[in-house]
């Protein structure tokens, strides 16, 4: 069991294994996303009030999902890297930060584009939008901290600590922003989403969410592979050292 675990955590093993399964998840991702896009944009019925503009939901909702999930994946990888000092977890964390930030940005951007026809403005200080923006800042903090250290080992540990503090903070931020919003409920604009979506609209959304999970996985695995190559290339002697020291390496 432990041997298997250590093998999984070795960058070289991961690089070889991921090379084999990456094409498969890429194909699955492509399948789900194209199915969801065609179904959602082309065949799902129009919304009674918003017409065709609601269709941006098929990008907006999945990317919001992944924005939040991505932070927890990043923080979990950071925790694993700190506690068990597993190199691969370290690389996962480093790769996950910009990807998560990108999904958060897409969620914010599509939200703004969607807001214009629906509420007549690109930006309102809605509770969910504000939380999303703060989440984006949290991601930025991790990325900036990571990139400003010159010492590679320190940078990921520092960023992991920050990500963990952020993880504790996220529920607090969400609750506090919710509370703040109920205090200052603006009278003019209300976020009136249909409480239950029609199945015809909901099914393509589900497909898109699955597709976005695959997209996230593809982006993550691809970045990790680049990160592995990058680190091993820059320090050739460390690479040799790592491989001679690892007893249970193939």
């Amino acid at each position, binding site marked *: 069991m432990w041997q298997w675990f250590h093998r999984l955590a070795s960058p070289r093993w991961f690089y070889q294994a991921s090379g084999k399964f990456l094409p498969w998840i890429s194909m699955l991702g492509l399948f789900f996303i194209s199915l969801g896009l065609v179904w959602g944009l082309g065949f799902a019925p129009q919304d009674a009030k918003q017409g065709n503009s609601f269709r941006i939901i098929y990008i907006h909702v999945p990317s919001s999902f992944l924005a939040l999930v991505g932070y927890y994946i990043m923080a979990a990888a950071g925790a694993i890297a700190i506690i068990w000092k597993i190199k691969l977890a370290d690389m996962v964390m480093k790769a996950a930060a910009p990807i998560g930030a990108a999904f958060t940005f897409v969620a914010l951007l599509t939200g703004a584009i969607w807001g214009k026809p629906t509420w007549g403005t690109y930006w309102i200080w809605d509770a969910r939008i504000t939380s999303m923006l*703060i989440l984006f*800042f*949290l991601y*930025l*903090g*991790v990325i*900036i*901290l990571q990139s*400003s*250290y010159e*010492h590679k*080992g*320190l940078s990921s*540990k*520092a960023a992991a*600590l*920050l990500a*963990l*503090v*952020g993880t*504790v*903070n996220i529920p*607090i*931020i969400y*609750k*506090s*922003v919710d*509370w*703040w919003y109920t*205090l200052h409920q603006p009278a003019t604009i209300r976020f009136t989403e249909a409480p239950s979506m029609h199945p015809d609209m909901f099914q393509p959304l589900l497909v898109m969410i699955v597709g976005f999970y695959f997209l996230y996985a593809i982006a993550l695995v691809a970045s990790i592979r680049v990160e592995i190559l990058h680190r091993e290339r820059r320090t050739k002697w460390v690479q040799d050292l790592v491989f001679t020291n690892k007893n249970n390496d193939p």
Partner: protein
Amino acid sequence: MNTGFMVIFRRDLLVAIRHRGDLANPVIFFFIVIVLVPLGLTPESSKLSEIAPGILWVMALLASLLSLDSLFQNDYDDGTLEQIIILPQPLYFMVLAKIIVHWLVTGLPLSLLAPILGMMLSLPDAGYPALVLSLLMGTAILSLLGAVGAALTLPLGKEGLLLPLIVMPLYMPVLIFGANSVQLAINGFSVIGPLATIGSLLALSLIVAPYVTAGALRLSIQG
């Protein structure tokens, strides 16, 4: 009482008192930026009183943020920090002592000055107790969370903007509950709820923040 805690507490307090100039900086900053508000906006007291709770809280937050650089930097530069870390004493308590001293010389004076500045911004009478109470507890949270950021950015030297960037998102809940508790008090509502929430955030960060800060400080001397 924990000896490491007492030693660091007395030393840091002494160092802070000997540097009187640095001591006054956050307070003077707070004072000056509050003066900027009527100049940039309007001297009309009805408008000022409307935005006073938020402005006071945001500016106090910035003043506390600006003073974070000094928390560990000098000790790091002259090697004292390494000596502190290798002491056979729990680092948690020594970090806590440093943070408490930081609060005593920034958060406490800011909270006590706030009513005077509130008066200048014509803050309604009902807001004062909530303002002072929320600032007293809130600035303590800011010092605790800020210490995490200060420790994480320590090996990077004086990076200026980096520390605020990583710390400010963490500050937002404190700001929300702090500023809105003052607003609620002015509008005649009970502020027990938000103040209790700030208190619970303070309790949580008292437990977590010194611990994470200690970990980050251990990291910083490895580089």
